[in-house]
């Protein structure tokens, strides 16, 4: 690397990758060379910037210009106008949805203003395939200091003081887990990184692994030092090929530099990491199922206790941590646990990465201090609901979580508050819904997922969830009854009470949460046979508006099931019992006489 005076950072996360950011990167490099700037301008790919709604992202430094929705065709103009002439390409700048003003520096964007990137500190900043960039940013300093200057007990004390809790959804205090694993007696122990991220729509862990894999590697080594393990295993879902590649490259580079392997930093401590691939099972994100999957057995959870910290992989003490939890650790050690504990709320320290999705203007990856309110996230960072629609609910925690509504908007986000409000943090999925979303359909969608992913071992999840889904389907088809609502509630409670693992224990949460918060909508579905958001097609009614009907018979002639009756020049009538809601009549009517309600 020479000394460049301009750095061009192109987002290489999977999202932008899918929008040709790889080609964009190559085209930018080509243009730079063609214009003779290769000694002055460095063009690299980085990890996820988080602003996925506006990807592919290109950031120019040092003037901090943040370009959005860049295509390979724009490479030429960026090089010619911006790099050479110093003129920003305005049409590629981000514009505020309401004020329509262009904002060039991401620091001034609502999306970024309230974010505090700790786990994502290097994503969008460094080239994840170059270990030197990680080292230049205090990389492996935490590991070195731990090995050379601190005892395992001291490091564990730091972890405990920081208040870091598991970011995979469990929220278990990380320091405590390390301490318990340390105390388990065995010659062989394992450090496992849970990179199975299965929640639909969640990509926090993926972005960290793609954008800053070394932070995870370093944290695993530190964990190994603390608990007394020299073997690290990363269980990563096979559906993340880019993350796997980046991780492999990073591990290879760490080994080359002597940061993984034997006698690390001359301390006598050995540690190395192997990858294990998932095979498409959400349930293998549950730690015991994950461990059994690695053992070559069917990926089914087993009863806890015994906990993995005591008896895990092949019966040995095993420490399982989530990717995001690990990514925080080098920063905590470098900047001190007091710093970390000063961020967040009383019982939930630090920040959390959320995948913001749904009917929100700014879809993407964000990281905010715990205690940030939902309102801030949705209306400031997310810049409000898309198309100016009305906010209805936000679903947190994926298929294990519940819905939060208008009345919860000022809840500070943390582990305990979310549970108290009837939801949970989960791994960080946040799906925003507007008035056009049907809450019954939403519950059904989550049950569909859980039914598909249930391992089948225990009765309540295997059969119970299926029955819940059948009832919800019945309701969305317009065949639900009032008793079905009671059945939903009762069965949900029994499933929660009797299921063997976290998947089953939390799968009824979307049902209970929507029943509690949107009882009216459920009642409308079963009593009035109406879906106010119009999402349940079976509940839509096509009717003729008598005032507008001129009796042209166009609808009746085209109805595939002869549901429309009426003579020429007389008002027509649709028989609801026969109507299959195909919508042809609406299409054919030229007099606005067909209404869908």
């Amino acid at each position, binding site marked *: *690397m020479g*000394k*460049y*005076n*301009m*750095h061009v*950072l192109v987002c290489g996360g999977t999202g932008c990758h899918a929008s040709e950011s790889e080609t964009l990167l190559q085209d930018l490099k080509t243009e730079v060379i063609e214009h003779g700037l290769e000694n002055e301008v460095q063009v690299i790919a980085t990890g996820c910037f988080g602003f996925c709604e506006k990807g592919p992202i290109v950031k120019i*430094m*040092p*003037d*901090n210009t943040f370009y959005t929705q860049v295509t390979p065709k724009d490479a030429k103009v960026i090089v010619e106008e911006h790099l*050479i*002439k*110093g*003129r*920003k390409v305005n049409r590629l700048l981000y514009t505020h949805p309401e004020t329509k003003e262009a904002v060039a520096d991401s620091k*001034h964007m609502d999306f970024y203003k309230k974010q505090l990137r700790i786990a994502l500190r290097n994503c969008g*900043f*460094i080239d994840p395939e170059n270990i*030197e*960039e990680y*080292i*230049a*940013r*205090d*990389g*492996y*300093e935490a590991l*070195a*200091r731990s090995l*050379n*200057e601190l005892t395992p007990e001291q490091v564990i004390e730091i972890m405990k003081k920081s208040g870091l809790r598991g970011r995979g959804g469990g929220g278990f205090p990380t320091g405590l887990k390390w301490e318990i694993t340390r105390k388990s007696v065995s010659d062989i122990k394992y450090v496992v990184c849970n990179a199975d991220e299965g929640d639909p729509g969640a990509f926090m862990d993926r972005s960290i692994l793609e954008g800053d894999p070394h932070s995870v590697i370093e944290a695993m080594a530190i964990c190994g030092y603390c608990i007394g393990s020299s073997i690290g295993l990363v269980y990563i879902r096979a559906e993340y090929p880019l993350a796997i590649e980046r991780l492999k490259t990073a591990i290879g580079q760490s080994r*080359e*530099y*002597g*940061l993984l392997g034997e006698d690390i*930093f*001359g301390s006598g401590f050995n540690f190395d990491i192997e990858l294990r691939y998932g095979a498409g099972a959400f349930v293998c994100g549950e730690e015991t199922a994950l461990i059994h999957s690695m053992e070559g057995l069917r990926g089914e959870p087993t009863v806890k206790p015994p906990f993995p910290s005591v008896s895990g992989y092949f019966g040995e003490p095993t420490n399982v941590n989530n990717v995001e939890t690990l990514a925080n650790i080098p920063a905590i050690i470098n900047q001190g646990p007091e710093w970390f504990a000063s961020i967040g709320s009383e019982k939930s320290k630090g920040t959390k990465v959320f995948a913001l999705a749904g009917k929100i203007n700014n879809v993407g990856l964000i990281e905010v201090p715990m205690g940030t309110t939902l309102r801030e996230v949705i209306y400031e960072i997310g810049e409000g609901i898309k198309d100016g629609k009305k906010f209805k609910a936000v679903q947190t925690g994926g298929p294990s979580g519940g819905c939060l509504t208008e009345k919860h908007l000022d809840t500070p986000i943390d582990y305990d508050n979310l549970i108290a409000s009837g939801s949970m943090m989960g791994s960080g999925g946040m799906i925003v819904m507007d008035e056009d979303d049907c809450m019954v359909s939403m519950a059904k969608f989550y049950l569909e997922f859980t039914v598909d992913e249930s391992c089948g071992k225990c009765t309540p999840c295997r059969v119970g969830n299926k029955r819940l889904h059948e009832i919800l389907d019945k309701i969305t088809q317009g065949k639900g009854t009032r008793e079905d609502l009671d059945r939903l509630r009762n069965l949900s409670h029994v499933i929660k009470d009797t299921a063997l693992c976290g998947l089953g224990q939390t799968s009824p949460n979307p049902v209970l949460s929507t029943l509690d918060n949107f009882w009216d909508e459920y009642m409308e579905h079963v009593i009035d046979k109406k879906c106010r958001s119009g999402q349940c097609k079976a509940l839509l009614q096509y009717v003729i508006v008598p005032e507008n009907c001129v009796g042209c018979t166009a609808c009746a002639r085209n109805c595939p099931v002869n549901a429309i009756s009426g003579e020429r020049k007389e008002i027509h009538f649709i028989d609801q019992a026969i109507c299959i809601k195909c919508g042809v009549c609406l299409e054919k009517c030229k007099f606005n006489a067909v209404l869908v309600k």
Partner: protein
Amino acid sequence: MSQVKSLADLRKLKEDLQGKMSLREKSNHPESMVQVKVAMATCGIASGAKQVMDFFINEFDKRNIHAVVTQTGCMGYCYAEPTIEVTIPGQEPIVFGYVDTKKADEIIEKYIKNGELVEGIIPVKYQSIETNKENK
């Protein structure tokens, strides 16, 4: 690519590498550093603004001054090219005209290092959108 065998090795390696990353580190917090913007429009380039910019970059590096040098568009003072805008943290930006490498040297030594004003300042009579926003 060298094996890192100790904490000292790591810190040395980091030091060596930090220079290369410094541009990015600095640009994340430009307000804390001296910012020099060099006008690089046609007239600027024609009058040798490129050499001036390179000079600033190299000299800041040599003299260990934390500064960010960027190029910018036409500032409007075509008669006085090459022009530069210097913003010292906490102070109003100042535009200098007729800046050649000799003048650049003077600006670094006198203004940037000591806060002494140097000849050739062009008074700014307008506000840009950026400054407008910041003032709001």
